[in-house]
């Protein structure tokens, strides 16, 4: 949840901008962080702060890959599925993660810890296959290293 104090701060910040719309993506990121995903309530808050119709926020939110309009786990695992990771075994990485987490792509673990999603090239081709857990990058993935990463990130 965004605190009333923070909402007031953000309102003042947005009002100080020549073009308040420039802040929309930042506001969506912050609201998503606060609510876990961009829920209807979070989207309404963003619209209110930026003084735009809520449909404008929804229109933007549904355009971007990293703004979630549905609930996700506490951390999202983004597995790169683009060409440089594919060519060094991305499919096996997905298979292993699916088995290990007991979920399919797009699913969330029952304990709410992880959501598994593909992501397009994350610019880590020199350490492919690669993935991100939240905003942390992991490369040169193997089943062993994935075990360790999941263990570490679960807490």
């Amino acid at each position, binding site marked *: 949840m965004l605190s009333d104090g923070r909402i007031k701060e953000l309102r003042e910040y947005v009002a100080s901008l020549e*073009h308040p*719309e420039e802040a929309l993506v930042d506001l969506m990121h912050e609201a998503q962080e606060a609510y876990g995903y961009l829920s209807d309530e979070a989207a309404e808050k963003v619209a209110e702060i930026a003084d735009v119709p809520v449909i404008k926020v929804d229109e933007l939110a549904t355009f*971007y890959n*990293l703004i*979630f309009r549905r609930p996700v786990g506490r951390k999202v695992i983004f597995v790169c599925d683009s060409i440089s990771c594919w060519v060094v075994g991305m499919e096996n990485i997905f298979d292993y993660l699916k088995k290990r987490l007991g979920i399919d792509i797009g699913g969330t673990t029952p304990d709410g810890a992880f959501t598994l999603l593909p992501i397009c090239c994350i*610019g880590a081709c020199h350490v492919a296959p690669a993935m991100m857990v939240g905003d942390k990058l992991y490369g040169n993935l193997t089943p062993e290293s994935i075990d360790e990463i999941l263990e570490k990130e679960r807490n």
Partner: protein
Amino acid sequence: MTPDDVIKTVIDSGLRGRGGAGFPTGKKWSLTDRKTPGPRYFLVNADEMEPGTFKDRFLMERDPHQVIEGLLISGYATEAGKGYIFIRYEYSEAAQALERAIGEAKSAGFIGKDILGSGFSMEISVHRSAGRYECGEETALMNALEGRRANPRSKPPYPASKGFWMRPTTVNNAETVANIPHIIKMGASQWKSLAAYEGGAGTKLYGVSGRVKNPGLFELPTGTPLNEIIETHGGGMRDGHSFKACLPGGASTPIITPDNMDVRMDFDTVSKIGSRMGTGCVTVFDDTCCIVRAMINNIMFFVRESCGWCTPCRDGLPFVYNILQRIEAGVAEMDELAVLEENCETIYPNSFCAFAPGAVDPVRSMMRLFREEVEEHIRLRKCPMNPRPLPLSHERARG
């Protein structure tokens, strides 16, 4: 130096846009409308999302000041008072490095009002995006910064006269901008002479990834031959495997086969052999890779990332994807190849921006260079190389 002097120096240097299109940077700057009173904007495109490309990440994480300094000089030349660095959300480390560097430059008096008593003022900020390939298209990038969906705009008006908030705007890739301080410091002719051959210009960040021993990023003279990049710098192929093909500069660049391995990696020379240098980050395939399957993966990226603005791209690319999947699954008939080619040729010239031509170009090159392997799939009714069932789907996995 006056802004005109800077622009002339950059024109003389021969620097070309490093985002992949290779448009001459100095010429782009000279087109910016500097007569209309400001504000004018300079936007750095750091939304690096071309699959196989990781050069701007290295640059910004490890030497953000190069980009900041380049942006300041670029802003001075185009008389822009406000600069934005548009960076993808996933590059949080790079964004933090840039913000730290901006803070340092500010306290040293290099950013702000009347910089070093020059009368030139510039503010710089970092915009974190939220993930969409189309944001890298310069007019879509402006829409994104304005808080709209990142669909491309029709031209004219051109950004040089009416761009960001309908004001004169220049957009350059992060690597392009990072070259500027060196060009100004060394002078156009000395910087130009850093290239690997007469007529080339400067150095370039080349990347190698895929099935090589030593994937990585290397700053080399522009025009370094492809085989030197792969073998000397990328460590060559993995033991026991041979080079089959590569994408020379990202997922939108046509395939290069062994007979062109000695091609000089610069914009003009690579174009002459029917491909494009693109971002200069090479993705290498070896004898274990099925080319149809590689193209399925490649086109899936474009299907998913298409912004949906125009029909050839939004609806045409899934057709291409479906036919490729049928070929790989062994259920396609020989006459579907003509349909595949017709689809590609229809999409290529009819889409709204450069996204869809880039999407189908590698597929077109596959039909030119690997027709036999494609036909073998249909004759055998299965993939001759990879028995694994297809796990890929073009469904969007997002909220």
